[in-house]
């Protein structure tokens, strides 16, 4: 690997820009994603920036169980994100369609439609798990570069699916 490629690899790892998309989520995961950018978790330390346009993004963060209406939008937005790109599925819904399983209004799970790199399970997942998932996706993105995603790669699952915080402060507040 020459110097330029190594530099590019580092830069891709250290500057993940996110585009957040809701595919019928209950808004729980969306709030947690925004919470990961707030002062308490401060994802910007990893270079994370929430972008307004999918054209600017590297990592597509999708929440929600993928309703029928959202399928077309997901494919459009996935096409609009310029390569190299990665997809993070946030919450249990995009991974398994969660409690909505077998609903006739759904067409999930997400990896039926687009290749998903990292799953962050939880209902909703904790912000630190989301940050871990984004960091993992940035790592995958940097290693993969311009190559297309491997079709049947084992999905990366990040976090324990815990919805409660493990820190001592929170235990004091919620006994």
């Amino acid at each position: 690997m020459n110097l330029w490629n190594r530099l590019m690899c580092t830069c891709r790892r250290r500057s993940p820009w996110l585009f957040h998309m809701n595919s019928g989520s209950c808004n729980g995961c969306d709030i947690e994603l925004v919470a990961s950018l707030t002062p308490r978790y401060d994802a910007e330390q990893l270079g994370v920036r929430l972008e307004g346009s999918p054209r600017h993004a590297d990592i597509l963060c999708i929440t929600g169980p993928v309703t029928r209406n959202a399928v077309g939008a997901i494919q459009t937005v996935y096409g609009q994100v310029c390569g190299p790109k990665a997809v993070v599925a946030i919450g249990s819904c995009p991974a398994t369609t969660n409690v909505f399983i077998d609903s006739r209004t759904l067409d999930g799970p997400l990896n039926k439609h687009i290749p998903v790199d990292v799953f962050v399970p939880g209902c909703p997942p904790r912000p630190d798990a989301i940050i871990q998932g984004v960091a993992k996706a940035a790592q995958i993105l940097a290693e993969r570069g311009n190559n297309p995603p491997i079709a049947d790669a084992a999905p990366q699952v990040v976090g324990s699916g815990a919805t409660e915080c493990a820190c001592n402060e929170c235990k004091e507040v919620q006994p």
Partner: protein
Amino acid sequence: MNLITALARLLIFPGLLFAVPAAWFFLWVERKAVALMQGRIGPPFMQPFYDFIKLLGKTTPLREGIGGLLMKAWPLLAVSSAAGAVALLPVLPSSGGFEGDLILLLALLEVPSMCIIAAGFSSRSIFGEIGSAREAVLSVSYNVVFLLAIVSIAASQHTFRLEALAQLPASPLRWLGVLAILVCLPAKLHLNPFSLPNAEQEIYSGPMVEYAGPELAMWELSHGLEWVAATGLVATLAAPHVTLWWIAAPIFVALSFAIVLLLSILASATARLAIDTTVRFYWQCTLIFAVLAISSVLFMRLRS
């Protein structure tokens, strides 16, 4: 003027070799200051550099025809004119180099904003068009005040040459003009109370909405260079005159840094205003001061 000093000023200081790292540094200071004001730690020091290199390595969507060519041309034009504006700043009191005058500097500073307007319309996205329209309205509002302030400074010192302006002792009227320019800078740099054209949530970052990869990297760079040029202009007008260049250059850099910090803190402390409020602010509140400055200058010139 000899060729070597001219090239050195264009390429080394305060030209490209100084301006590009300074642009990244100012972009970092902007983000870091906002983060610190919000009680966060903020991005690492090299963040704008990482972003720039990463954007260079991304693919861009294929666009055919004259529209695609234009979309490639606007960011390049913006970067080159902003770099030219930086190179014109009379930091080193030299006998050679570019004898820049204020009118050329103002024209070069105005080009990136026009490029943004054109870029939004040539992207043919509805959000881009809204952003461009906002940018156009905004630039009509602040430019009246900005130009009146510049004219009042030039008229009070009887010269439009930047080098001469930097060397003359400052009069009280010049401080009034510098203050008026400072009021216009947040709008010129699309900072927070007046960040209407590139509003991320409302109109998906406006004129930039269709830009990706290296083109977006050029826009980021041109924004950084605009930072350097605009703060450098204020620093040139406000800095005390020192003949030794090795004292003058650090003073220039420190003053620019202080202005960047001031503007970033203002940006993090305020929320975005609506377009009508912004226009009213510039046409009703600040125009009075600009008119006051220029009329007092003209009055003093008539008396003397």
